[in-house]
């Protein structure tokens, strides 16, 4: 068959289109340079000095970035041959995702904020095994870093991939000025909490407790974890987080969930809480629509521009324990880590070791109102540190008042999401405690499979 020139030309756009598609697909990420091809951008120079470019990824949320700026400035002063490149912001975990996927990650990462997961990063083999190196790090006074943590680092199959930098803990915030003015008692256990909330509900005509229903893990981590710790300690926490068979339907868990059901039935929980995101719930709390909210230490810093003049922050660990028992806290640690594929691992190690310093820990508390995970940091004499933090720090150091529990590792999102959904159903009164436990147990079974 003869094909005329004009017929050939008619097919030309199609050929051209296919060629473009193939070209685009061919130029996709598969052809990205491998780390070996890219080569090292720095490291230790011949004379043993740390040099080259150092990329640091850090999330900027409620704690701001002032502390990071100061640490990085001091670091570059001490290591003038290192050029620090900062990747920071509230969405930095998403913005840097493609870098991690293409095996071109930053050298140091602070794991915090939406879109980050320590567990996932370790499972994906993205973080450097720090086990041997970390045992050699010493603080400014020569004490070993691993002996100086308030809370031990998470270990995955015995290995250390992250070093816990920020000691955050969820607890119960209240308006200390209002409590003092109206004579409301600060709760010391669950029953006294219910009594205080009943009094506030009746006198102030508000639902006393609020949290964010769009992010139910605030309640899970801020209220339920301490409650589970009070009835079952670290062992129960570990069973729940890892989804052990029968853990979520066990008697102690049911006992805790019945307390939550009681809070709902007695009108303590804000009726609209399920729709609130975390800033809406925090705003409602600051505006006096509610009296208690479980949030981490970032709350005062995050809401600094919206705090009414007559408002004073008061903080206690979540009062879910029985009378006579100490409060429980389950700290939420925000770690530093080094990428497995770091281009400049020597500078990365130097920076991580540099950041753990008691002087920086003081500065962190001044800037953020929160605590670095180091012992021996005396905040009492520091006028720049807010009172609630000094009081909390004092409580945390008194085992008769507060006991510290810990999780083996953060709960997987595959388990946390369905449990969170069941929790919203319980807290809006659509299911009871028994049904919650059954749904959570079913979610754990799915997770195990």
């Amino acid at each position, binding site marked *: 068959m003869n094909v005329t020139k004009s017929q050939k030309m008619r097919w030309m756009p199609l050929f051209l289109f296919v060629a473009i598609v193939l070209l685009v*697909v061919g130029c996709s990420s598969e052809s990205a340079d491998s780390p070996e091809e890219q080569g090292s951008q720095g490291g230790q120079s011949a004379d043993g000095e740390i040099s080259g470019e150092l990329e640091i990824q850090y999330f900027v949320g409620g704690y701001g970035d002032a502390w990071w700026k100061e640490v990085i400035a001091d670091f570059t002063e001490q290591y003038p041959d290192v050029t620090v490149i900062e990747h920071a912001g509230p969405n930095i975990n998403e913005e840097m995702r493609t870098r991690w996927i293409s095996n071109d990650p930053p050298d140091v990462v602070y794991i915090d904020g939406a879109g980050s997961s320590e567990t996932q990063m370790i499972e994906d083999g993205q973080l450097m095994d720090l086990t041997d190196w970390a045992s050699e790090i010493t603080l400014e006074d020569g004490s070993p870093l691993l002996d100086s943590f308030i809370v031990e680092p998470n270990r995955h199959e015995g290995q250390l991939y992250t070093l816990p930098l920020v000691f955050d803990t969820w607890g119960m915030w209240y308006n200390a000025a209002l409590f003092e003015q109206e004579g409301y008692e600060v709760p010391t256990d669950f029953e006294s909490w219910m009594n205080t909330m009943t009094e506030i509900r009746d006198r102030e005509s508000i639902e006393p407790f609020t949290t964010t229903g769009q992010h139910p893990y605030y309640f899970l981590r801020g209220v339920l974890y301490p409650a589970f710790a009070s009835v079952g300690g670290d062992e129960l926490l570990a069973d729940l987080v890892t989804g052990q068979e029968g853990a979520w339907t066990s008697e102690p868990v049911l006992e805790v969930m019945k307390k939550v059901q009681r809070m709902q039935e007695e009108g303590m929980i804000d009726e609209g809480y399920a*729709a609130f995101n975390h800033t809406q719930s925090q705003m409602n709390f600051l505006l006096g629509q509610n009296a208690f909210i479980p949030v981490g230490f970032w709350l005062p810093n995050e809401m600094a521009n919206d705090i009414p003049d007559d408002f004073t922050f008061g903080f206690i660990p979540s009062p879910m324990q029985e009378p006579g028992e100490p409060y429980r806290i389950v700290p939420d640690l925000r770690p530093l880590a080094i990428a497995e594929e770091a281009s400049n691992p020597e500078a990365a190690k130097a920076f991580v070791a540099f950041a753990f310093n008691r002087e920086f820990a003081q500065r962190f508390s001044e800037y953020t109102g929160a605590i670095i995970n180091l012992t021996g940091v005396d905040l009492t004499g520091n006028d720049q540190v807010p009172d609630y933090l000094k009081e909390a720090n004092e409580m945390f150091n008194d085992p008769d008042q507060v006991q510290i529990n810990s999780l083996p590792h953060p709960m997987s999102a595959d388990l946390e999401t369905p449990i969170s959904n069941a929790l919203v159903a319980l807290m*809006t009164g659509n299911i009871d405690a028994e049904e919650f436990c059954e749904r959570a147990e079913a979610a754990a079974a799915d997770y195990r499979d």
Partner: protein
Amino acid sequence: MVQPKSQRIIFLMFCILPTLLLFAVFTIYPLFSGLYYSFFEWSGSASDKEFVGLSHYIQLMNDPIIPRTIIHDYFLVVTKVIGIMILATFFAVALTQLRIKEAPFYRVVFFFPNIMSVVVIGILWAFIYNPNLGFVNAGLEAIGLGQYTQPWLGSERWALPSLVLPSVWAGIGLFMLMLMGGILNVPKSLYEVAKIDGATEWQQFWKVTVPLIWPQIKNSILYIIITTLNGSFIIVQVMTQGGPNNATHVMGSYLYQQAFKQYNFGYAATIGVMILIISLITVMIMQFFLRKEKIQY
């Protein structure tokens, strides 16, 4: 001077090349890469992927949340099509047929939400629905209907219907302008003839206006369907994040949750393929039902 044919073709290729390139990069490539990733177990943050064949498609069939998301999507499609088309048609007819002096002002007012980001609209309406501080409950209390106040977005029953109002409010302006364009093109003589024949205003609307602006109505409906199936994710994400207890998850928001909260990018890609197929089927069915002889005048 007549140009040689080959020169014209080269000129045409030069013109369409950028478009083809953009289409390939931003439509064809993501489409096929989405399909490709649906066959892999991938966390979305690692470079390693494990081939799992059709297992994500089997998971999709057995996922109890998927049917709910599809129902939620179609609920939004139906309510938005009805709400937007009735109101947009009403205002389009009113602003073109009635002698309203302030018509240009109203056009701007109705179109205003279209220039606002959906995120802003979502945040605004979340405040309006706030059970403690919001306008809706306060308004109901003020007119003596306090017994009907609700935690609108926090209620499993009311959260999804509550999303319809902001979506309709935000959509009226654009479609009103599209329909106005059609109505203004209808020759006045047809209405005059209809009047002489004794047709009422209502009959003129159904017998003259609707048939002659049918292409605009059809395109509007299809556009609402497509944008709802693909875009209702944003309003859901801003206002409820799929909650409470999955009561407002649509296919897009569930995809987002799987990808960016649960790190199941492979499964999320499978949901993306499902959304594409469902959207295509829906549009094809609607095109079949909305087909009509073109009326010439």
